[in-house]
């Protein structure tokens, strides 16, 4: 026999109270000499003994009643093996029903989705629930959402709850699942607890963690009977796993090349996979991938034209397949009319100066024509104080010797407002001054501390090339398309030795060493790029190779992008940063489903940020600084790790859960039968409570009867 509230068993000591009172009454005997003993004759003595017996009987009844009521409150339960009481109790069961609602459950085999199948299984489970039994219903995803917690079962309400359930766009966080289920079961007061996990048991989730899962379920089975209900379904699925800008400038009237990557998550070769690129929901380009092998990924380039300025919604979309949620990949681009670059030149040399090289590189087009939508304004560094930075999107500082404190602060503010800064080294740079004045703010303006010049050329005076194994930084992507011999033509003879700050990150390094050539750091809503070499030909030959214009144009495109152009994944937080304290205290996020969420603006480390925790839908969110303001679209995509929808086979399921004490049930009939078999505990509290109350009533009636009897005897005597 077990008890739901074992601590309340201490209440059984309460029966000591009437016994104690009885014993105290018995032991607190006063003595007296007595003359008239003849009146305490035999009949009185018999009567006295009767009273003692009566007292003992009443005491026993009272104690028994109290004991039974205490037992009832402790909510005892027993099993069939526990004895004759077992047949009397009620089969009360507390149930935790966990339904996998990750987006793989949207997989449709042509007749219905896995989620529909899951709901049908839950309907079968429902048949075994008694009205009033505690039920917890939880949807499993990246965050397990409790739909109903410990509610008394009502068939109609339960059906309403099931009707309202829908699969999410999230992936399944299986690692937190056992503990979450254990907590939910522990929260439940029932003589026996059952946990049902209705899931498609994706091989990629369950198989790699089989040993850990077995142990976790074994531990979970100690707290409740665990039933795993695996769902059926095919494994065919194609998913767009990537969609990113490869090259091109995001300006009005131009086109950019985006790369869409499609993975075949199924077990058969996918033929003629059609990929469409949409700009603001209009198909702009379509490509067909002839075939994709099982488990393989193929990429296609989509050329997307930008006819208007402003934010545009970009989509790479597959034709229909069994799982629609991962057929779409979204991105956002903010298209500009024109980009203005201020090039500040520190070198006093003329024509072949770095400023001129930078301007030429930025304006260069593949067709040899200059870019009309790009304006480069070059000034000498001494003229910097007279420039209005607000007119420019990007500032390039090339070999600028030093900087005043005021200008360092102005540049810091300029970047934090969402603009870009590109910094080049050179012979004129005064490292100490830059180190000191760029670090006056909380976060240094530059991503690294400048040390001394470092020669990287060999004895022949030939510099080192760039490391071809580059990071997947947007700036580097275009370089990846260059032939290796062309990339290796760029040689660096001299660099500034630098120590990256905590916020700085190396983007390009020299081959054969860790010496960074290009570093980046985020500052506020903007970014800073720092070259440890010169823009001109003094320390390298970069300016005369294709690397230079490609890098600069990608950098300017990247720097002029907005933070929401980066795609997010379902479950990520969406943040909206403010340069200054906003007038409105709340930001507004419109969800893809059309719901409007209001999020308070909070002060994080002197930055004002509105943070939306956990975007739970895939699609385009719209972030607005206030209800009236124009919105910026934010692309949120599903986590395509969930796209491999292949399930564990029956043998694999058995092998994985072998010895874990978990019941695996597939059919509706099996579900009912196994649950009935496992449901051995019976609640006895009602029996004990009834018995306790009966004994209380009996005690009262007995006492009343005895009192009445005494009164009748007295009446007769009178």
């Amino acid at each position, binding site marked *: 026999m077990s008890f739901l509230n074992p601590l309340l068993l201490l209440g059984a000591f309460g029966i000591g109270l009437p016994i104690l009172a009885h014993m105290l009454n018995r032991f607190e005997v*006063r003595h*007296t000499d*007595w003359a*008239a003993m003849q009146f*305490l004759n035999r009949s*009185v003595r018999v009567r006295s003994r009767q*009273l003692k017996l009566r007292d003992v009987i009443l005491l026993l009844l009272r104690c028994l009643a109290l004991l039974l009521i205490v037992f009832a409150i402790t909510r005892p339960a027993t099993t069939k093996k526990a004895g004759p009481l077992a047949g009397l109790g009620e089969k009360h069961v507390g149930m935790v029903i966990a339904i996998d609602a990750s987006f793989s459950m949207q997989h449709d085999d042509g007749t219905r989705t896995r989620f529909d199948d899951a709901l049908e299984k839950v309907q079968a489970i429902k048949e075994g629930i008694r009205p009033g039994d505690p039920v917890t219903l939880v949807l499993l995803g990246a965050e397990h959402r409790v739909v109903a917690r410990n509610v008394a079962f009502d068939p109609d309400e339960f059906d309403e709850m099931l009707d309202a359930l829908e699969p999410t766009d999230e992936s399944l966080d299986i690692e937190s699942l056992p503990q979450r289920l254990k907590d939910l079961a522990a929260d439940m007061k029932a003589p026996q607890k059952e946990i049902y996990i209705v899931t498609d048991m994706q091989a990629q989730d369950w198989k790699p963690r089989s040993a850990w899962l077995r142990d976790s379920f074994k531990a979970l089975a100690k707290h409740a009977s665990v039933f795993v209900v695996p769902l059926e379904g095919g494994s065919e699925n194609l998913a767009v796993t990537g969609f990113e800008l490869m090259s091109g400038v995001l300006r009005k009237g131009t086109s950019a090349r985006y790369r869409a990557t499609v993975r075949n998550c199924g077990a058969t070769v996918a033929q003629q996979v059609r990929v469409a690129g949409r700009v603001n929901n209009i198909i702009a380009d379509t490509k067909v991938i002839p075939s994709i092998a099982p488990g393989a990924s193929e990429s296609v380039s989509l050329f997307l034209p930008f006819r208007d300025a402003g934010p545009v919604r970009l989509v790479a979309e597959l034709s229909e397949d069994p799982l629609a949620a991962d057929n779409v990949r979204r991105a956002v681009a903010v298209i500009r009319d024109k980009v203005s670059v201020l090039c500040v030149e520190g070198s006093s040399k003329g024509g072949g100066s770095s400023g001129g090289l930078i301007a030429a590189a930025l304006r260069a087009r593949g067709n040899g024509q200059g870019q009309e939508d790009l304006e480069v304004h070059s000034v000498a560094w001494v003229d910097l104080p007279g420039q209005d930075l607000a007119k420019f999107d990007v500032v390039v500082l090339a070999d600028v010797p030093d900087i005043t404190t005021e200008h360092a602060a102005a540049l810091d503010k300029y970047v934090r407002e969402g603009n870009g800064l590109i910094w080049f080294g050179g012979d004129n740079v005064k490292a100490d001054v830059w180190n000191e004045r760029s670090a006056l703010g909380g976060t240094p303006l530059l991503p690294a501390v400048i040390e001394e010049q470092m020669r990287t050329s060999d004895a022949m005076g030939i510099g080192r090339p760039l490391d071809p194994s580059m990071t997947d930084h947007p700036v580097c992507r275009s370089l990846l398309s260059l032939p290796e011999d062309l990339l290796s033509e760029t040689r660096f003879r001299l660099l500034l030795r630098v120590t990256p700050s905590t916020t700085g990150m190396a983007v390009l390094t020299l081959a054969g060493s860790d010496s960074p050539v290009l570093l980046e750091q985020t500052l506020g809503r903007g970014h800073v790029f720092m070259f440890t070499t010169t823009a001109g030909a003094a320390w390298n030959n970069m300016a005369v190779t294709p690397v230079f214009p490609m890098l600069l144009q990608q950098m300017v495109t990247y720097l002029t992008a907005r933070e929401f152009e980066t795609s997010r994944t379902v479950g990520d937080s969406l943040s909206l940063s403010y340069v200054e304290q906003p007038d409105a205290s709340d930001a507004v996020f419109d969800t893809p489903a059309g719901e409007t969420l209001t999020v308070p603006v909070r002060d994080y480390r002197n930055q004002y940020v509105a943070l939306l925790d956990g975007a739970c839908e895939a699609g385009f969110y719209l972030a607005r600084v206030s209800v009236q303001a124009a919105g910026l679209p934010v692309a949120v995509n599903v986590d395509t790790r969930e796209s491999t929808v292949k399930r564990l086979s029956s043998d694999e399921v058995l092998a994985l859960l072998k010895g874990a004490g978990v019941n695996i049930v597939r059919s509706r009939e099996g579900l009912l039968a196994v649950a009935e078999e496992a449901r051995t505990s019976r609640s006895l509290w009602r029996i004990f409570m009834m018995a306790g109350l009966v004994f209380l009533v009996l005690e009262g009636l007995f006492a009343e009867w005895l009192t009445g009897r*005494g009164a009748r*005897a007295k009446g007769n005597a009178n």
Partner: protein
Amino acid sequence: MPDHITQINYLDPELLQKLGDLELVAREVVEGLRVGSHRSPLRGFSTEFAHHRQYVPGDAIRDIDWRVYGRTDRYYTKLYEAETNFDCHVLIDASASMSYGSGKVNKLEYAKFLAASMAYLVLKQRDSVGLSIFDSEVRTYMPPRSAMGIIVEIDKQLRDIVPTPKTTVAKQLHDIALMMKRRSFVILISDLLADVDDIMAGLDHLRFDGHNVVVLHTLDPYELEFPFKGTWRFEGLEREEPLTTQPERIRDDYVANLTEYLSALRAGCVGANIDYKTVDVSRPVDGVLNEFFAERATTLTGGAVGARL
């Protein structure tokens, strides 16, 4: 109202016990009675008829001999020899049961007050008074005398009483009846905790010998009311089997037994022309005596004249 009435509280048994001197107690009690009644409370106790005399105004109507009037058509009053001298014998039960007292005065002490008061009263009327003390046997037998000095001896005898566990009232009454040579006025002071038939047998013996018997049945208020609460163990003073019980729950049975016993005793006394009085020992002695004499006067003038010889 006489002044002494306001001092009646001085006759509270507890106060009398503090006085210690039984003679003083008796005097206090009796003087109070005399002053209060202006006549002897023992008037009419006489037993020996002497002769008739012509009625004169002032004589009590009840003393007119109506049979003589019937024969002679003249009023004559009866004169009794005892009016000039009669023997009063006070019998005190000194058994252990008499030592019970729920208050500060037990039944025996109270009996002593009563005995002393009665003796004093008798002597004040220049009659003779004697004393017998008995328990399981007759411990003291003092033949009646009229000398005032006997009160001192009575006082001494009363003081020297040591209660003994067992009493046999009936047997002792038989023995005392045999000791008494003259018909006397017998006052029995006892709690009479024995079989009613045995008691009546003894009392009948006295009545059979021609004694005028008065029974002052002393009982403690706790014995009358049985007001105990809680759990009590009753230890018999005369070596009865003890009883542990909750008295308030058996009180009805106890009171029923007591009532039955008292009814039987009272009925027996009435049947044997014995004056019977239940005395609650918590009451003032003079009040009890006053009440007793008032009741007796009523009885003597009423239909219960049969109690007189």
